[in-house]
């Protein structure tokens, strides 16, 4: 199945774009989507441990299942509010 991937801030810059699509097998999780996008863009790999995740504009755990057509977002550490 195919999911939409959104990258923000430094992740977006490292990948060279905000919006991507990934092919993942049925039953894939948010973590599987991360591995797919990081395989396409190895510069993202250092964020493996610090990335936060969202599914359809809600925060999601890495273990959350994704469905065909979902929007999955990866967020580097945040720095708003100042």
């Amino acid at each position, binding site marked *: 199945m195919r999911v939409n991937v959104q990258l923000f801030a430094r992740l977006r810059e490292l990948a060279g774009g905000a919006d991507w699509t990934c092919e993942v097998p049925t039953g894939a999780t948010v973590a599987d989507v991360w591995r797919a996008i990081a395989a396409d863009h190895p510069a993202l790999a250092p964020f493996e441990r610090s990335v*936060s995740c969202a599914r359809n504009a809600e925060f999601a755990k890495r273990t959350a299942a994704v469905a065909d057509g979902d929007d999955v977002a990866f*967020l*580097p550490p945040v720095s708003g509010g100042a």
Partner: protein
Amino acid sequence: LGTNAQTYTVMIVSPAVTTSPLSVESLVVALEREAQTRGEGCGAVCSFVGVVRATHQGRSVTYLEYEAFAPLAEKTFAQISREAADHFGGALVAIRHRVGRLQIGEASVIIAAAAAHRAEAFHACRYAIERVKQIAPVWKHEFFVDGHAWVEGAIADPADDEARRVALERACA
């Protein structure tokens, strides 16, 4: 108390994430009006304005850009407002964050907290800014004369009880 519905009423006055300059007055007035529709109204409004500073860790900043994941930021601000209401006697909290390019001296974030009494208003406002820094999907990009840098702070996890405890501690101490 129906706090969620009231927070929502405040939220629709203006977008929570905007490229336009932020006005603390309009947020305070909106909160006061909203509080009047409740029983006895609020007696205290505390607000916070975060201002772009000219230097960061000794380097001279030319300007900043903020980026946000807007739909998630709006939900996150609503969650923070609910948390603050739960902790501080139904305090009414509104949060606005600016995005795009900001000059030195401009406001990047404003928060207003209305409550019956001043202690709750101060605590709710401080709690909210601590939580914004912890979990709001917003990023600061600093531009210097000789380069630029993304600022990376907290790993956003709204379900992290320890982070919430730290925010409460800072709000009340």
